[in-house]
């Protein structure tokens, strides 16, 4: 009898193990793992010409920024984590980043019309005026929300979102009252999807609305501070044929903060874009007005962190070394501006277009300060603990923060030679943007020639010649870059930026550097040795200052 029991038990165990094995095998077959890794390292050396001495380095010979992100998917479930290390942060990144660990962990369930995420997540409502959380590695910026995110699409074309959580602040774990709590809801209706009668209509219409509120306790014994600050936004996207209009308006109640000097004025933000596109021609116009619209989950923080709102830039983002020397940083306390862009493709075989045609792009953007008037005779403009100021909605202030006229021509001359030629005139209010009061605005002419010569299908040489001419700031610059590419694996480059017009003779410095890189599938190695000039890196109007440095930098990245 006992033997029979043992045999039965063995059979059941084998069946059970097989079933579990089959389930595990099935699960593994349906699983997907994705990841990306990057390590940026920099070895510093003293460089007397740049004023970098051993005592300034103070033994800090190396900086390292690195991350690894892993995402696991199993059907409707996904989970992930992100590891970061800043040991120590590379020069120009916020020293508060120093440390290592797992700042972001998350798990998510996505059904057909419903999703829920817990842990760290990124979200954007509309253009981001009242909510955008994102991560930008090149800035060392991450304002991820840690909490719960829910989306629900009851019918196709109608989407609801809700978020609730606290934002990442470098490595500081959230503790009671040490920063605000963010709550938000968003609804968006895409009429062309929602109503079957409009599916094939030339007329396109999307309507959306958001509300975001932050809660932060008032511990300030001097001022009565609002503990719940709400912001509201409405948006519409209307298209007809080749035309498209997109607009969003946001309003925020009183939100005294370190950024706005603790004034109690309400905030407003308005963004409108108009575009037209047809074969060979694209037109784009944009208008933006920001008035006291810094919205952060900690009213006392001034560092590049904890932004709830995102104020999109309306100036063209430039990529060449000298065209991006003076980049514009969004002014959340107030700015008003516009942008126009024309893209035209001169047809092939025309007189101007030649055999291959030619692309022409003209862009003009200008951003001014807003007008500020006294709230009464006894209160100074922007005085702490007052309503601050009044401002007319459509009036441009006299102070020009930024002006940029640039013309770019993209031309292929033959099967072997093609080039991009750019001219730019730029006005940059260095006093406001970089916080150098008293310094005159930098007016500069900038020209770029970027020519690519193809020796064979795999080998090519690119030459960049650039010049920047200005009487202000550091004076004139010239730059040259030679880049030899052996596709698809190798590149080698040498570059020099020369500040030959600096009024201080000792600062007429060459910023030489040499680099090479190797790419294999999705893995890329890059080494760079030389000098890096002092400057500003801006992405999406958010900027960080980069000090001058000298040494070797290495970057390794891969993803799978």
């Amino acid at each position, binding site marked *: 009898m006992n033997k029979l029991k043992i045999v039965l038990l063995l059979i059941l165990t084998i069946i059970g193990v097989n079933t579990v094995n089959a389930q595990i095998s099935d699960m593994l077959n349906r699983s997907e793992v994705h990841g990306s890794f990057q390590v940026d390292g920099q070895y510093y050396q003293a460089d007397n010409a740049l004023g970098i001495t051993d005592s300034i380095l103070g033994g800090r010979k190396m900086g390292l920024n690195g991350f690894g992100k892993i995402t696991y998917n199993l059907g409707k479930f996904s989970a992930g984590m992100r590891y970061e290390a800043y040991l120590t942060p590379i020069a120009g990144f916020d020293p508060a980043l120093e440390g290592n660990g797992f700042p972001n962990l998350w798990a998510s369930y996505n059904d057909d019309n419903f999703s829920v995420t817990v842990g760290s997540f990124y979200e954007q409502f509309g253009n981001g005026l009242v909510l955008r959380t994102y991560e930008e590695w090149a800035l060392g910026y991450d304002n991820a929300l840690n909490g719960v995110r829910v989306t629900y699409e009851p019918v196709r074309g109608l989407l609801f979102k809700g978020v609730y959580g606290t934002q990442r602040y470098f490595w500081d774990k959230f503790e009671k009252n040490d920063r605000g709590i963010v709550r938000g809801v968003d609804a968006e209706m895409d009429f062309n999807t929602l109503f079957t009668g409009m599916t094939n209509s030339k007329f396109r219409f999307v309507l959306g609305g958001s509300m975001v*509120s932050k809660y932060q306790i008032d511990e300030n*014994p001097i001022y*009565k501070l*609002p503990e719940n600050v*709400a912001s509201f936004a409405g948006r519409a996207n209307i298209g007809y044929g080749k035309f498209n209009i997109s607009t969003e308006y946001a309003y925020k*109640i009183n939100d005294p903060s370190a950024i706005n000097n603790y004034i109690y004025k309400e905030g407003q933000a308005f963004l409108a874009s108009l575009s037209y596109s047809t074969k060979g021609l694209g037109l784009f116009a944009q208008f933006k007005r920001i008035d006291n619209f810094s919205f952060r989950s900690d009213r006392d923080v*001034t560092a590049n962190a904890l932004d709830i709102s995102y104020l999109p830039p309306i100036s063209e983002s430039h990529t060449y070394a000298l065209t991006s020397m003076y980049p514009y940083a969004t002014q959340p306390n107030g700015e008003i501006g516009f942008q126009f862009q024309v893209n035209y493709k001169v047809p092939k075989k025309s007189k101007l277009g030649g055999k291959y045609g030619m692309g022409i792009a003209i862009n003009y953007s200008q951003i001014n300060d807003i007008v500020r008037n006294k709230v009464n005779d006894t209160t100074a403009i922007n005085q702490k603990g007052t309503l601050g100021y009044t401002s007319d909605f459509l009036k441009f202030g006299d102070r020009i923060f930024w002006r940029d006229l640039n013309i770019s021509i993209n031309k292929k001359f033959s099967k072997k030679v093609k080039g991009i030629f750019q001219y730019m005139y730029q006005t940059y209010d260095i*006093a406001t943007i970089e916080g150098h*009061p008293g310094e005159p605005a930098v007016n500069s002419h900038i020209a770029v020639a970027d020519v690519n010569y193809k020796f064979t299908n795999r080998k090519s040489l690119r030459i960049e010649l650039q010049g920047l001419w200005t009487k202000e700031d550091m004076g004139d610059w010239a730059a040259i870059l030679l880049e030899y590419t052996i596709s698809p694996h190798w590149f080698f480059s040498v570059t020099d930026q020369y500040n030959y017009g600096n009024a201080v003779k000792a600062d007429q410095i060459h910023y030489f550097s040499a680099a090479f890189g190797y790419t294999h599938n999705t893995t890329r190695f890059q080494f760079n040795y030389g000098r890096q000039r002092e400057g500003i890196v801006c992405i999406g109007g958010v900027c960080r200052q980069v000090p001058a440095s000298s040494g070797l930098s290495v970057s390794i990245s891969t993803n799978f």
Partner: protein
Amino acid sequence: MKIFKILSLTLVIAFVFSACDKVEAPYQTGFDCESGNQNVLIEDYTGHTCVNCPGAAVTAHDIKSNCEERVIIIAVHAGYFAEPLEGTEFDYDFRTPTGDVWNNYFGIISNPNGLVNRVNNDGNYILSPGQWAAQATKLLAQNSPVNISIKNDFNTSTNKLSTTIDANFVDAVEGNYNIVVCLTENNIIKPQKNNNSSIGSVPEILEYEHMHVLRKVLTQQWGNELLNGSVAANQKISKTLELSFDGTDWVAENCNIVAFITNVSDKSVLQVNESAVIE
């Protein structure tokens, strides 16, 4: 119908969230200066080319104006923005060797920033100006086991100051404590960069009134030993120090002595007081 329900739910949620606090004037409230005997030391790390520093000085002044003698300010000019710029109006050197040491030790890399009673918040001493008031009000409500009294005797003929600091222990204390004694000066008229038009001209205030400027630390930079062991309640420990004003541009009438007792291990301030050099 389902859509209607969801829309209703969203509106309800929005309504709950819309509990937003519209604050009406007057926007200022007051401090509780009556509870506790713990005085507060605000160290305002600043610099004459720092455009945001006048705003921080106003913040410190606002806090002090609520509780006057219970809030003591030291403006420590140190770091990049305090460097004198030769050949410009900003060529005056406000810096002190001790100020530089403190600036480096506490890890102040940007201005304005400060310390309030040198409280270490999870490894970080630094507070932005917007955080000073909240920290100050917490501390003001606390009790310290010691009070400090300062007696200054300035001899105008010899240009010498003799200062006697009495640490009067109201409770028994055990541990290792130092006393730091500083000279600060008010009403120094020198240029200051500024970006706040509600305070003064932008971008520079050429005749800015610098207040509470750290001039000299009479003790060693981290203080002279006051107590290493224990002291009973109602006991007094006194220290006398001397300082010559010769060869300096210090104006005795504008100067104060600030004395504070610190815990040697974590640098936190046990008590602080201030007294004018010439009453």
